[in-house]
């Protein structure tokens, strides 16, 4: 949950598929929980790609491949499309990811990640393709995500890019503050707006 961001350096878990939808990240049958138990959701992250119907792990899925580890998920274009379920972000956080790198995120899911202190880092198509390539060649490839400088670096090739993060959200992430903390201080403005209508 709420945790401060600074500089993260980690190996990565690659998922080079496009249009990964939130139904795959966490299937609907796991949405019945009434609490925000991140471990439960993390245990069921990518459930139907990760486990057979009898609960045994699918060996060819990347989360079951012992070569890959780390707190950075690298995913294909249009990550998190479909359902608005925040459970998908809880599952990603619950598994232990702190950063998701992709060339394109679906809007609602991107907000959900940010609201759960998982940082979506948007990189160019070229950066993403090169990173997948680096990881394919060496599973120990590390990436450095520098939140204060807003840069992401493939440490295998040295390729570095600046990523977008507005000043407000950056401040929130670096200080572990959420939007509700902010909104609760705005009551006067809200009442003034209501009176002006």
């Amino acid at each position: 949950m709420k945790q401060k961001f600074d500089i993260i350096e980690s190996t990565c878990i690659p998922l080079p598929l496009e249009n990964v939808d939130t139904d795959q990240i966490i299937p609907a049958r796991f949405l019945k929980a009434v609490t925000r138990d991140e471990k439960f959701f993390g245990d069921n992250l990518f459930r139907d790609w990760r486990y057979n119907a009898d609960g045994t792990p699918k060996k060819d899925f990347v989360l079951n491949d012992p070569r890959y580890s780390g707190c950075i998920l690298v995913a294909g274009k249009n990550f998190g499309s479909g359902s608005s379920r925040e459970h998908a972000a809880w599952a990603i956080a619950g598994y232990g990811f702190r950063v998701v790198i992709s060339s394109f995120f679906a809007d609602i899911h991107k907000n959900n990640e940010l609201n759960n202190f998982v940082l979506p880092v948007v990189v160019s198509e070229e950066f993403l393709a090169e990173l997948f390539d680096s990881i394919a060649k060496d599973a120990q490839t590390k990436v450095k995500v520098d939140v204060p400088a807003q840069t992401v670096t493939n440490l295998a090739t040295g390729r570095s890019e600046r990523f977008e993060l507005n000043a407000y959200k950056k401040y929130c992430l670096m200080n572990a503050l959420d939007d509700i903390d902010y909104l609760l201080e705005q009551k006067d403005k809200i009442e003034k707006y209501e009176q002006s209508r």
Partner: protein
Amino acid sequence: MNTLFDKIWDAHVVSLIEDGPTQLYIDRLYCHEVTSPQAFDGLRARGIKPLRPEKIFCMPDHNTPTHDQDKEIEDPVSKSQVDALKRNAAEFGLTHYGMMDKNNGIIHVVGPEKGLSLPGMTIVCGDSHTSTHGAMGAVAFGIGTSEVEMVLASQCILQQKPKSMSIRVEGELGKGVTAKDLALYLMSKLTTSGATGYFVEYRGSAVRSLSMEGRLTLCNLSIEMGARGGFIAPDETTFAYLKGREYAPKGEAWDKAVAYWKTLKSGADAVFDKELVFDAADVKPMITYGTNPGMGMAIDANIPALDSIPAEQRPGFQKAMNYMGFEAGQKLLGHPVDYVFLGACTNGRIEDFRAFASIVKGRKKAANITAWLVPGSWMVKQQIEDEGLDKVLEEAGFAVRQPGCSACLAMNDDKIPAGKYAVSTSNRNFEGRQGPGSRTLLASPLTAAAAAVTGVITDPRTLL
């Protein structure tokens, strides 16, 4: 600049955070049982209450069974979620339409039909298909549970203002071509990410001539192109639909409201960030063949050949073909079907049942088909009975179930078994969406009806 989206959005700006999001005022928050319990927990943890409880309406829809709703829900986990919503609504003084309440149904069907969703409003819900309410001429969009908590706590949300897109569809839709086909056609052209970052205004003569139900279907599917939301400027069709509805303004207030609603349109000088134009005559009855809603085609077409797919998309395409049990280049007409699902916030309205009934009337359900016909609300179910459609359907071998989201996402018992093919009027054909291993073919109510009586994928135009 000067688009209707700008007008509605700008009128709801409470404050602008420098180099940050906008603090946007929300007129209506809907809560269902799946995406709200953790938000209510958040309020309790902070020791706060909803700021404007009168603007918030709650109803269970995702977990509700589609039979025996007068009895307790059998699945204890589903029951605990439905019970939690009731308890939370009572604790915080919010309106709650529980199971068996005549006001209950799918939140995106109930909101418009009760006049709770009105032109010019900002509307949110922890559900991506909140875009549906855009059909009323509102800025409506889906949000996450943390954002539900924001709105409960402050009646505001922090959001970056999306860009604006105009999708203009001119001309007339052909016979047997519905709003659903138009939406599936647009998705097939734009892909599931083509409108990401945008709010879409649907315009043009083909959009104008859609009924309110058709508009709700079209706006419902905006999210499947990646859009934050989609809407249609209110007009006489909207006003006629709303007049007399429970929460719509009455008397003098109505006249005043209509006068204001008539001003809700994009200026002649409006500048959109992106403008697309389509010809309604190009749209045929559509069906999907893959595992995202953008993988759709005309029902009489062939699945694309592998060499027509860009290299970076081939792993996903091949994965989809394997999952669906199809091959690249294959024709789908005549392919056997196991299940037919009519319903969901996409196509669970009265017009959808009329369309389905128009095809099955005087015919019989095919023996190999299991059909689930699920109205979007008790009000729709009542209307089906008032119009005698239930009799037509029964004579053809179909039964009308009780309302809810049902097999659209299979959180209740209505699950399509692994490996089975379902022609479904819902909104998503993702892997496992209608049950683990289920194979979904998205289509219109007419195409669903054609499959239901023939047992195979059939062009509905041959049965009209």
